[in-house]
């Protein structure tokens, strides 16, 4: 029922870095941006931005398409969906389990109080 694998690890690893998260957050707001537009808010040089984009690309979090001299970067939602899927499955598992656990423990508590415990 739970099935996660290497791509998901790449997703999580790619998201460690605050610059990469900022890039993703921006791409979430805008439907595509050029590399130089993405680099502008950061106090780092273009090659450093390119490296971050490589990591995001390898994790499948973005796509890059080239038209003439402009590279447009877009968000690619699939890996994030997968990560969310992982969480939702666990959420379902534990939420249902803990509901029954509570009912079971409350039954035991009531039993004990009847016995004067």
């Amino acid at each position, binding site marked *: *029922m*739970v*099935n*996660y*694998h290497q791509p998901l*690890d790449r997703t*999580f*690893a790619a*998201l*460690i870095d*605050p610059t990469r*998260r900022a890039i*993703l*957050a921006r791409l*979430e707001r805008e439907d595509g941006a050029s590399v130089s537009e993405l680099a502008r808010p950061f106090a780092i040089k273009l090659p450093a931005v390119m490296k971050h984009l490589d990591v995001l690309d390898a994790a499948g979090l973005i796509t890059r398409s080239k038209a003439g001299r402009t590279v447009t970067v877009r968000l690619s*939602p699939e890996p*994030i*969906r997968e*990560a*969310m899927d*992982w*969480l939702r499955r*666990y*959420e*379902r*598992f*534990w*939420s*249902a*389990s*803990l*509901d*029954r*656990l*509570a*009912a*079971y*423990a*409350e039954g*035991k*508590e009531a039993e*004990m109080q009847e016995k004067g415990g």
Partner: protein
Amino acid sequence: MTSLTIVRRIKARPSIVFDALTTAEGIAWWWGPDDGPVLLAETDVRVGGRYRVRFRMLDGSEHESSGEYLEVVWPNRLAMSWCWTGGEDPGQSLVEIDLRAIAEGTELTFTHSRLHDEETRRSHEAGWNGALDKLERHFLA
């Protein structure tokens, strides 16, 4: 988010909740995502001891998880590693449960976090949850 946290208030004292969490009888009652039966429950509740639970879901599929108890502090805290057996999940994760006595009984704080590798653990500490929350809101909208 690398981790899932659930808080429940239970009208039972912490010792009862702790035993429900750790005894084979208790686990057989509550473990699993739906009302399918628990087929096997083994626990050796001490640090370094192991547990193994097998259950069948209503769709007929069977699943088994096992792990090691990492912290056992009766009746307040339990930490255990978590792994699905049978190749469906190669990684290990961590389950932590804290039980706090409150007027009505127990406040249970449950956390399941991914610990697939060192990077994942660091990412958890780096706290990128907020960023992913935002993305989740976007994609699930």
